[in-house]
C-alpha cells in the first residue's frame, strides 16, 4: 500500500516536471509561417551542436548552439533552401555536423556495411540450417521423435 502511494507520488512529480514541455524548451524561436517553422525545426534537429557534440542544435542550451540557430533562422528568412543551410554548415564544420552522414565515397562503407553483414549472416545461417537438416535426414537411428521437430 505504501509502495503504491510512493509510485503515485513519483508519477505525479514526473507529470508536473514533464507536463508542459514547451515551457522548458531550449529554443522558443517562432518562424513567420508554419512551413518555415517546420523546415527550421527539421534543420535544427538534424544538425549537431559542435560544442556538446551529441546533442542537436535544437536541444542544446549553449550559446554557440543559439548563435547557430540564429544563422539558420536568418538564412531561411532570406529565402535560402535547406540544402544551402546544410552546405553552409558542412563547409565550416565538416560532415561531422550532420547527424545523418551523406552518402559519398568516404561514407559508403558506413551505409553499406550493416546490409552486407546482414546478408553474410543470412548466407551463413542458411548453410548451417541446410547442413543440419541433411544430417538429420541421413540419421538411420533418430534418438527420439521430439528431437526432430
Amino acid at each position: 500500500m505504501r509502495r503504491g502511494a510512493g509510485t503515485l507520488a513519483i508519477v505525479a512529480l514526473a507529470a508536473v516536471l514533464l507536463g508542459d514541455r514547451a515551457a522548458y524548451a531550449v529554443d522558443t524561436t517562432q518562424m513567420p509561417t508554419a512551413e518555415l517553422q517546420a523546415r527550421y525545426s527539421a534543420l535544427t534537429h538534424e544538425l549537431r551542436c559542435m560544442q556538446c557534440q551529441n546533442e542537436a542544435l535544437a536541444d542544446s542550451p549553449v550559446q554557440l548552439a543559439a548563435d547557430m540557430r540564429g544563422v539558420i533562422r536568418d538564412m531561411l528568412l532570406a529565402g535560402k533552401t535547406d540544402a544551402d543551410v546544410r552546405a553552409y554548415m558542412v563547409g565550416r564544420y565538416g560532415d561531422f555536423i550532420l547527424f545523418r552522414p551523406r552518402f559519398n565515397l568516404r561514407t559508403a562503407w558506413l551505409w553499406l556495411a550493416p546490409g552486407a553483414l546482414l546478408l553474410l549472416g543470412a548466407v551463413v545461417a542458411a548453410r548451417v540450417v541446410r547442413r543440419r537438416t541433411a544430417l538429420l535426414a541421413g540419421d538411420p537411428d533418430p534418438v527420439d521423435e521430439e528431437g526432430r521437430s
Partner: protein
Amino acid sequence: MSRFLVPLAAFALLVVVLAIGIRHAPEKGVIASPLIGKPAPQFSLPDLGNSARRVSSGDFKGKWYLLNVWGTWCYECRAEHAMLLEVQRAAVLPLVGIDWKDDDSEARTWLTQLGNPYAVVAVDHSGRTAIDWGVYAAPESFLVDPRGIVVYKVTGALTREVWTRDILPRLTAGRVTGS
C-alpha cells in the same frame, strides 16, 4: 580445421579494421576544419582598440597572419596568452585577434593586465564571424597565407610545440616557394 579457420579469419579482419580505426583516429575531440586549403571567410568587425574603426579580412591581403579566437570568459585563453606574447616578440607574423562573444571593457582590461600580443583585435559580439570560421570552442587559431588561404588550424591553446612543429615550417615553406 576449417571450423576454426573462418572465425579466425573473421577475427583477424576485425583486428585489422580496428587497428586502422585507431591509427587514423584524429586527436581526441579535435574535428578537422574543412576550411583548410580554402579562402579565409570574409569579415568586417569593429576594432576593439578604436571603436570608430573597423577590421576587415581585406586588411591583411598579401601578408601571412595568425587569426586567434579568444574571449575573457575562456580559461584556456589565459593559459595560451604567454605563448601569444612570445609569438608577438618573435615578430614573424601579425596576430589578429577575434574577441568572441565578450564584453569590450573586460577585454580591454585583460589586454592591459596581461599584455597585448595582437596587431589588431576585431570584436565579434554576435558570434557570426566565429561561426563563419567554423569555430566551436575558444581558443582556436588559423594560419592564413598571403593569398588569403587558410593553411592550418590550431584547436585549443597555441603551445610552443605547435608553433615550432606546425606553424613555423609552413611559414618558411611558403616563403621559399615565393607565395
